[in-house]
């Protein structure tokens, strides 16, 4: 069955709009191509996708080579906000951009829930 981009996009849109302090989200292939994205203005979908793939691949490499095991997520904490990368099955990577004000526990829970929805569409 073909992957529905509209479904992916609508999941991302409802995730970004319904969760407070989330500024953007994207689903990309592990080789860095966009599948669906809802990003703040001025951010290029292609670049964001490529960066997400590069970061996750390096993180996974640290996991395996430096014996940290399988990687659940990569968490980038800046003074203006967070960038969180989660592997979304074999064929996708999920990126979330959140405001510094976001509550981390809530964020993780929302990401976990959205991952289930995304995986259902990607299956």
């Amino acid at each position: 069955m073909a992957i529905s981009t509209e479904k992916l996009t609508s999941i991302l849109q409802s995730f970004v709009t319904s969760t407070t302090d989330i500024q953007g989200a994207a689903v990309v292939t592990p080789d860095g191509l966009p599948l669906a994205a809802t990003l703040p203005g001025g951010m290029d979908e292609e670049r964001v996708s490529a960066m997400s793939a590069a970061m996750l691949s390096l993180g996974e490499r640290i996991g395996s080579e430096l014996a940290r095991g399988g990687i659940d997520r990569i968490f980038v904490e800046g003074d203006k906000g967070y960038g969180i990368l989660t592997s979304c099955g074999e064929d996708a990577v999920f990126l979330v951009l959140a405001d510094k004000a976001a509550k981390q526990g809530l964020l993780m829970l929302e990401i976990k829930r959205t991952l289930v929805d995304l995986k259902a569409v990607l299956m």
Partner: protein
Amino acid sequence: MEIMRLVVTGPVGAGKSTFIRSVSEIEVVDTDRRATDDTLLLKKRTTVAFDFGRLQFGPDMALHLYGTPGQSRFDFMWDILIQKAHAYILLVAAHRPHEFREARRILTFMKQRSPVPMIIGLTHTDCPGAWDAANIALALGYPHPARRPPVVAINANETASVAQAVIALVQYTWAGSLTPTT
């Protein structure tokens, strides 16, 4: 111990990862992922962050080799890697002339960010339809044979051949550092 950082760049499928794998003494740190774009026409997997290899060069020098991704969507990696490079090699598949423009684009990108020495490595020179060195240099923007970087033919699968290219790059870098450039 002195460390010299060499960057291996070039278009998709030029042989960058193979180059590093052939010559590295440590197990290469690679970040390849299954390709889902046009890259598939050439190969199944593609580098998404960088390849890293190491080579001992004489008693007091180690070479660190960094291979870039080929696709331009990863140009932020090109930028990160070239900033710290002491020299770089541009790999070009001699039998795919339609990629020379992309190779030239990468070259321009690197030159804008770094003045370090570079050489050109030609791979796939034994394939049918391969261009000769002079014409490829011309296509990359070097019309004068006297004023172009060294061009070497490389079999990226052969350790000896890759080692020769690495030596050529290191020697060219040393030669450049002896004569003051203005």
